[in-house]
């Protein structure tokens, strides 16, 4: 993935002399740290996916396209209004919550007619629609934004970490914690967890199931808006940019256990490290091989994932 390779290229600049055939502990440690930083953003994308799966029991195929749309939204706000990508979270996170809410409430939910297979097709159709709309508006060029802090770094003596990626890590962890708190402590969160397993029981205590579905979808989409704001300072966007992330995110969701929030978080960090290390040892273009080897191994040996409930 270009994100990882760009990061590692950046890492390489900082490391003075990587000539030894066996990498020095500093280089490996840097790779692990960079993997964790990347992994936190992966986890954020995976959180949205796993939340929607856990509650609505559907794979949201529009997840990648919505991430791309959010990244373009960051780009547009930067180009038109000069809004910093981090500041852009303030309007974009609520906006994408509303977009996600409306999509589920007024498009995906009604179009499903109670049949999960329909939802699959509707979200797939949505993703094609969104991608092509973006293609029509922005063409297929890859675009980036310039921010003054893009190449700033934090010096840890043995490693230099790119500042935007450290920020991305911190914000991702905070968002994941906030999401956990929402689900564990608020009535809305409890209602979301209730609906996930017992729709009829939820309706009978007066929970509006369609509303809770839409809120869940909105939360998943809001996670994407956060991820987009965190990615744009160091990443490019094209109409297909989000797809690559969702591919990795899907692996994380399977690894962590479909529907598991801690699974998505830990799985995301783990996959980030795997990608970083396999990139280091096998070379840039093979960085993702480790991810997909793990993906296949999980499907073979532990299909419920690390934190998934056993059937």
């Amino acid at each position, binding site marked *: 993935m270009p994100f990882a390779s760009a990061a590692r290229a950046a890492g390489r600049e900082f490391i003075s002399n990587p000539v030894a055939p066996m990498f020095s502990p500093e280089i490996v440690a840097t790779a692990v740290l960079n993997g964790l930083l990347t992994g936190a953003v992966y986890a954020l994308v995976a959180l949205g996916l796993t939340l929607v799966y856990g509650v609505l029991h559907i794979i949201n195929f529009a997840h990648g396209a919505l991430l791309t749309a959010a990244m373009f939204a960051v780009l547009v706000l930067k180009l038109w209004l000069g809004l910093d990508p981090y500041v852009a979270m303030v309007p974009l996170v609520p906006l994408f919550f509303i977009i996600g809410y409306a999509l589920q409430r007024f498009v995906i939910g009604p179009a499903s007619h109670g049949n999960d297979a329909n939802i699959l097709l509707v979200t797939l159709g949505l993703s094609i629609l969104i991608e092509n709309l973006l293609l029509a508006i922005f063409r297929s060029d890859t675009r980036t934004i310039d921010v003054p802090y893009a190449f700033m770094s934090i010096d840890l003596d043995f490693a230099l970490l790119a500042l935007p990626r450290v920020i991305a890590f911190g914000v991702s962890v905070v968002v994941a914690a906030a999401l956990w708190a929402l689900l564990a402590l608020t009535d809305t969160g*409890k209602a979301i*967890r209730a609906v*996930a*397993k017992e729709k009829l029981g*939820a309706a*009978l*205590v007066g929970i509006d199931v369609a509303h809770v579905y839409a809120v869940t979808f909105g939360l998943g989409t809001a996670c994407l808006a956060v991820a987009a704001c965190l990615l744009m300072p160091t990443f490019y966007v094209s109409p297909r940019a989000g797809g690559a992330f969702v591919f990795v995110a899907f692996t994380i969701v399977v690894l962590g256990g479909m529907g598991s929030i801690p699974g998505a978080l830990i799985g995301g960090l783990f996959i980030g490290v795997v990608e970083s290390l396999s990139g280091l040892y096998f070379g840039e273009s093979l960085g993702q091989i480790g991810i997909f080897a793990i993906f296949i191994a999980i499907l073979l040996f532990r299909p419920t994932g690390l934190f998934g409930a056993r059937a």
Partner: protein
Amino acid sequence: MAETSPLLAVTGLVAGYGGAPILRGIDLSVEPGEIVAVLGANGVGKTTLNKVLSGVLTPSAGEIRFDGERIDGAAAPAIVAAGLVHVPEGRKIFPDLDVHENLELGSYRRARANRAANLARVYDIFPRLAERRRQRAGTLSGGEQQMLAIGRGLMAEPKLLILDEPSLGLSPLLVEQMFTLIRRINTDGLTIMLVEQNVVQSLEIAGRAFVMENGRFVMAGAARDLAADPQLEKAYLGL
């Protein structure tokens, strides 16, 4: 006037799934403070009636008045908000939430302000639930799950509590306790509609009863009279 009008009044109710009618003209009333038993064998339409009353299923004809207001066709949350709470067959508790959270969600739509007091009251009625407060509801025994389902229903301070097959799947001893408990909750002032297959014990605690057969009530009256009526067995067994 308000004192004499029934809490729940159902007239000419017709409902079913995909055009096939299950309920074929139901008339039913529940007066404030009483226990009304709705009896009938498996598959005669008792659960369908409950689904319509709680807004999960929309009736195709007829009228439902609760506390003076039309509620037929209203959505489930609005019906809960009005104070009609349905404890469903099969409990339908939230398996991944703990006991305490299940009870909290009982007051999601109604009586939220009194949550703390009602939690204390439910734990007082069901000490067993208090012991298992932080246990995942899915790991409770069948009897405990039934207590939790009723406790969750009580959390909304219902005006009418519909209990659908509360004795189903319980051991004879627990069934006995369950009926004692239902009577106690009723004595505390709660109006109850008890939907049961367990005829004998239901008639013991109910004031009035309706016997359903094939989507219609074929017998209705004082529980004591029905219990003595030789017709009951015939109707109930569908002979």
